[in-house]
């Protein structure tokens, strides 16, 4: 205890040097906490774009659907009855249910000019294009509660959302629509003639080809990675196209504020029985795992470099302090202080530096993260073009760990200077000038 007091007083002797070392520690630890907060906020942003924009909190499928999602899942559908919807909606914590169909389709854009009379084909530049897309069909009135983010993507895109659950309308990704020059139809104006509409072709539930003429009423700005080849369509029009009247492939669910995700999933699964499977939105997004791993790796490297540079500063300051105090150390050894105690004294000085600098830094970083969490930073999520609010956040456990790391690091950094001090020979040290 006496040694610790001595350590503090020693630090106060050369205040300018102590302050400079502390500033380095504060900046290093503060930046570490802030960067961590930013990364976690960004991760949340990606996930929320997925949940609030494509999936909904929970999804209900026919048993085996998710496993076979790359096969031909239209046969793994179920009848969308008012009773079934009511059964799901009655589960505690469920706020809204939206029936959907996910299906692969080919979109064929109209030729830009009528076909020549002589039967020859149009020049390449005037021909329509065909592309494969993943379509999601829903009723906009029901879907808006479950994935409100889609409506925001339309705001950042062009046009408007589907007019109803039965209209022969689609929305496509904005970049994709520009790329293949899909004409945008303004709702309320006269429909274009048949040959100037888009055709959506898809194998129906029995794999027989079918098609529907549609107009593109709007576009969705890119908001999540890999969303260039996706589109949305009215549920009723899709059911006719796929010959699936009254049937859907999934229910998207929104939960009431604060309802526990996993517990509600299990309750919905229990209510529906073994013919169905229920997944949380987090279970359905495998690519987020890759992003998390990359981010953690990069953050690990960056924070190690930060800490290393800051601790080099601590080594330097402690070494200076030892060299300045050679005669004093000689005196202490001469009056009977143990070499072990000399080591402890200098390590104690390091610990005090690390604890104070680390704490101030961590708290400043935490304060910045908390402030930004409340206000939000408006920038696009990775892979997106739509700005959305990024809310940095860190938990107190990470803040505590940062302080501990700084303190332990500073103690380690003073080990070598402390050892050098303890190795001095009293006679030579006393004679040192």
């Amino acid at each position, binding site marked *: 205890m006496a040694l610790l007091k001595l350590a503090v007083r020693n630090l106060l002797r050369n205040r300018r040097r102590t302050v400079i070392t502390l500033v380095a520690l504060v900046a290093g630890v503060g930046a570490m906490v802030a960067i961590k907060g930013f990364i976690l906020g960004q991760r949340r942003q990606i996930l929320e774009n997925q949940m609030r924009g494509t999936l909904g909190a929970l999804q209900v499928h026919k048993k085996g659907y998710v496993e076979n999602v790359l096969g031909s899942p239209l046969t793994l559908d179920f009848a969308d009855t008012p009773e079934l919807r009511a059964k799901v909606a009655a589960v505690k914590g469920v706020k809204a249910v939206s029936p959907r169909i996910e299906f692969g389709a*080919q979109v064929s854009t109209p030729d830009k000019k009528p076909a020549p009379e002589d039967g020859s084909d149009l020049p390449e530049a005037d021909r329509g*294009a065909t592309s494969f897309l993943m379509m999601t069909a829903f009723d906009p009135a029901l879907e808006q509660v479950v994935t409100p983010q889609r409506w925001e993507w339309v705001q950042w895109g062009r046009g408007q959302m589907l007019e109803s659950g039965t209209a022969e309308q689609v929305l496509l990704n904005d970049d994709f629509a520009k790329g293949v020059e899909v004409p945008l139809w303004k709702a309320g104006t006269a429909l274009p003639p048949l040959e100037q509409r888009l055709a959506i072709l898809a194998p129906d539930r029995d794999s*027989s080809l*079918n098609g529907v*003429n549609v107009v593109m009423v709007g576009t969705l700005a890119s908001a999540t990675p890999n969303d260039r080849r996706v589109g949305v369509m009215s549920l009723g029009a899709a059911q006719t196209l796929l010959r699936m009247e009254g049937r859907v492939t999934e229910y998207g669910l929104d939960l009431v504020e604060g309802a526990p995700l996993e517990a509600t999933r299990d309750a919905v699964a229990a209510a529906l029985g073994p013919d169905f499977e229920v997944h949380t939105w987090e279970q359905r997004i495998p690519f987020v795992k890759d992003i998390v791993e990359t981010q953690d790796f990069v953050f690990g490297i960056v924070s190690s470099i930060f800490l290393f540079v800051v601790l080099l500063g601590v080594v330097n300051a402690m070494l200076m302090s030892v060299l300045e105090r050679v005669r004093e150390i000689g005196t202490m050894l001469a009056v009977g202080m143990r070499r072990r105690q000399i080591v402890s004294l200098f390590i104690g000085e390091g610990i005090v530096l690390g604890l104070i600098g680390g704490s101030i830094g961590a708290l400043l970083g935490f304060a910045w993260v908390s402030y930004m969490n409340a206000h939000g930073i408006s920038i696009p999520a990775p892979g997106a073009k739509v700005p959305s609010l990024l809310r940095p956040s860190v938990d107190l456990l990470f803040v505590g760990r940062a302080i501990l790391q700084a303190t332990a690091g500073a103690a380690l950094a003073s080990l070598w200077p402390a050892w050098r001090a303890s190795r001095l020979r009293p006679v030579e040290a006393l004679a040192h000038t």
Partner: protein
Amino acid sequence: MKTTLLLSLVSSFAFAAEPTAADIVAKYDSIMGPGTYEAQTEMTATREDGTSRTYGMKFLKRDTDKFRVWFSEPASVKGQEILRLGDNAWVYLPNLKRATRIANRDSFQGGDFNNADVLRVNYATDYDAVIAPSASPDQLTVELKAKSTETSYDKIRLVVRKSDLQPLKGEYFGTSGQMIRSATFSEHKEFDKGFVRPARIVMQNEVVKARKSEMVTKSFKLNVEAPPQRFMQADLGK
């Protein structure tokens, strides 16, 4: 005169003994995709859940690359038509009431044949062929390598009967080198005077093993009348 006769004898003998890869491919094209013809066929597609569906259709072909297809069965596809001119294809769906462009690599009515397998058989133009070792002395094997990336397959291994070069087996590979389809040709019979071809082709999906499609030819008439207006976009649905 004598020399010419001798030479032609020698060459026909040589042909009978060892046809070149180009001969085999030319013969395949002439059997599977002869100049102008009309055919009635039935395709049965079996899917991974064990269900199957049979489609009835009529083909009309003119020159090397003009095709029409009319579907008659089942009810859900009745009235559908396909037109193919060279690299471009259109489908006419009764409920669309118009012709729409379709991609070449599309599967043919949800089966395991794709549009190019059924509508465009012109291996001599699309692939480079070399002779490959055969498993049996009565057979000949050629390996075809795609000339461009536009073809449906990257590589095809074709096995034909040595006696008359009728196709027996086909193996179709994707760009990754994986076998994606394999075909068995059987029931070779004479459909038109002197024109023999397999009446049954089974296309096995090698990626999803439970899937296969069977194409049975009911009738096949060569040199039928195929007026040019049948091969215009405007004729679809008429």
